[in-house]
């Protein structure tokens, strides 16, 4: 290679195709934002008195009605925690077989893999509030609808991550077990399970944390838990009680996060 051709070359980080693709993304982004700003319906009068309304809202929320906690909030809060926990447990029970069926090293059948993946994706793409609406229509209002909503929404999440963990499992242990004549179920419990266990607990804890947050809103559509107390207080314009409910939700969510972080640090 001679010196002349070297000098002509300009070093560029990306190929022209890469640069074009990036430019397209930027252009698309800016267009989307501009079009959205221009077409979205905003009522300027509402925006103008927003600070005033916000101040009014805060004034009505203060002082927080702590006396309302024992009779109106505590029970609903416990119900919310049960919905989140039981929902997570049910989702694990449903998600485990589906997640295994989605892993091609457990079920070497393309068609079954795809069906399992489709089930997981459809579970994930329906919001838990929509699941709650559906289950309220089927089972009537109450915690049962909420628990099932949480469970069905979580199946996709838990199943996908369990399936991925199984697919990443090391073959060595499993081959050793199979060579010793271990049946299929033993290979699963003594070969795969110890390997995916850390990932599994981490996924379950993470999902439980999310579920505590999600189960707090389900009551808005009648699916039980603290959302019901929130809805009632709001419909009656009792903003000091609303503040109490919000404070309770905030505390539980923060405590749940701290607990999950502490457990994860100990077991992982």
């Amino acid at each position: 290679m001679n010196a002349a051709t070297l000098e002509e070359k300009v070093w560029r980080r990306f190929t022209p195709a890469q640069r074009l693709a990036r430019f397209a993304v930027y252009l698309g982004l800016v267009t989307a934002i501009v079009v959205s700003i221009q077409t979205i319906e905003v009522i300027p009068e509402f925006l103008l008195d927003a600070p005033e309304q916000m101040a009014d809202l805060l004034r009505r929320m203060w002082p927080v009605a702590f006396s309302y906690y024992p009779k109106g909030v505590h029970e609903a809060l416990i119900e919310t925690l049960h919905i989140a926990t039981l929902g997570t447990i049910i989702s694990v029970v449903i998600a485990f077989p589906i997640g295994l069926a989605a892993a091609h090293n457990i079920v070497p059948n393309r068609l079954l893999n795809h069906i399992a993946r489709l089930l997981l994706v459809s579970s994930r793409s329906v919001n838990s509030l929509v699941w709650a609406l559906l289950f309220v229509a089927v089972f009537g209002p109450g915690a049962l609808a909420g628990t099932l909503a949480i469970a069905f929404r979580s199946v996709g999440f838990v199943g996908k991550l369990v399936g991925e963990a199984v697919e990443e499992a090391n073959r060595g242990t499993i081959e050793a077990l199979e060579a010793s004549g271990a049946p299929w179920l033993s290979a699963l419990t003594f070969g795969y399970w110890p390997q995916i266990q850390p990932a599994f607990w981490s996924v379950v804890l993470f999902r439980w944390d999310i579920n505590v947050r999600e189960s707090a809103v389900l009551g808005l559509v009648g699916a039980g838990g603290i959302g019901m107390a929130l809805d009632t207080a709001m419909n009656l314009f009792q903003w000091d009680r609303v503040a109490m409910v919000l404070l309770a939700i905030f505390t539980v969510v923060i405590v749940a996060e701290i607990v999950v972080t502490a457990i994860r640090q100990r077991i992982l």
Partner: protein
Amino acid sequence: MSADVARVAFPADWRVRAGWLALAAYIVYATSLLEFTYARFMVGLGNGARFIARMLPPNFERWETLLKGLTESVEIAILASALGIVISLPIGLLAARNLMPPWVTWPTRLLIALCRSFHPVIVAIVFVKAIGFGALSGIAALTVASIGFAGKLFAEAIEEISLKQVEAVRATGASFMNVIFYGVLPQVFGRFLGFSTYQLDSNLRNSTMVGIVGAGGIGGALFAAFQRFDYDFVCAMLLSIILLIFAGEIIANKVRAIFVERTRVDEE
């Protein structure tokens, strides 16, 4: 260990067994508390069958309402993501403990925790009261949610950067802003982009829901149709929402693929 003692390959762990027993006890206790009964379940199955029969076939007659709601949801998601990410950048920087003193990071972290602990729908309720019904409340609520998630992830990404480059830039006598722009941001750009596409995806999901409390988007029409037992229209809307979310996920993956090369930079 003496040789004549028979070794069991996988000895039973009594602590694990006690754990399973406790889990079973909890399930029994919680199901009784939430009034799950077999009779209710069977009634529900009958209701479910009738419910599905009424949902089919989906009714796309009022496609104009549907399209209007979907468009508004997309617009809410785009604007909330843009706004949320722009605000999250400085907030993430302020919350990074390796760049800022504790008296800056603590209040910022508290703000992020506050934004994250409430479900977007609950935040939307507060904004509907303050700003009034409509898309603006939805944008505000999802912006808050974006700050909660993107802000936290940005802060964590910044805390994991290599300080060598920062020191090198600082050693040249660069100002604080220059250290940020040339020492910090290039290291985290790829991951920021990943988080941002993830946030857009998540906002798209939630923007179809905030309408339940009157904050714009297709959620309002969905909830109204549910209450009118207009289940075939509900089915049409649910199908459209799922399609929209799929499309959003595909676009987000494409965008990530275009920029993925850059994420390798910060993996050393």
